[in-house]
């Protein structure tokens, strides 16, 4: 088989896999959450140990912690 053809098949295969991923991703995000789970937020207990920089739950948790610290500092200044 020609070398260029192998690359074309390889890239085609990756595109198919990518398309499957996009399809499942859209399906997952379009499917409504079960009753009572519509507004689930990340829990502090679960996110506390994880230092995954790219995770948006961690970002949410960190911003929440920063706000708390700011409020505590303000409270101390007032006292």
């Amino acid at each position: 088989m020609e070398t260029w053809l192998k690359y074309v098949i390889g890239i085609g295969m990756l595109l198919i896999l990518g398309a499957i991923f996009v399809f499942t991703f859209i399906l997952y995000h379009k499917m409504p959450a079960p009753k009572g789970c519509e507004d689930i937020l990340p829990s502090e207990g679960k996110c506390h140990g994880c230092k995954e920089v790219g995770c948006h739950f961690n970002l949410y948790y960190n911003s929440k912690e920063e706000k708390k610290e700011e409020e505590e500092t303000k409270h101390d200044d007032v006292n």
Partner: protein
Amino acid sequence: MTTVPYIVSFLLAIFTSMMINNVVLSRFYGICSFIGIGNKVKSSFSMGIAVTFVICFSALICWPLYTYVLNPLGIPFMDTLAYILVIASLVQIVGLFIKKFSPTLYKGFGIYLPLITTNCAVLGVVQGNTDSGLSFGMSMANALGTGLGYLVMICVFAFIRMKLEGNQTPKAFKGVAIALITAAIMSMAMMGLSGIGS
């Protein structure tokens, strides 16, 4: 190979990947979810089951993909990209099933489910299977053993952490610090099994 020795070597492979080469405590893969989720036994158990499921199905798809498509075509260097896409799709499918059929489980870790994609244990096992040239059966044994090893260790870890919460820990060691020390002691304990079979 006759059936009985094959079954014995299959079971031995499961035991080896589960206990001796434990994915978390010996190979240090999947530490993030191990520390992050491993503070409640129930959510740890659910996470372990989901990771085991994803590892097994990834191995089931990725081994034939490498052996019958990527390698014969002479493009084995594309394996990591292909594996990542397979794992990511599988995680979405697992998420779909959980969302549809188990609201309790979804409530437990639904929003954390997509994070299994970034669990390096899954990619590590699949990549290790093809890099070491394992047969299909041994790849599946390795995947199953790794998943079970992860499941057992995350549950044991969660149980120890729950017990630790009730104890008086020095302030400097509270939270993640004592969790890491616990994981280190567990890892050293697992090293005691390293001589088995040699």
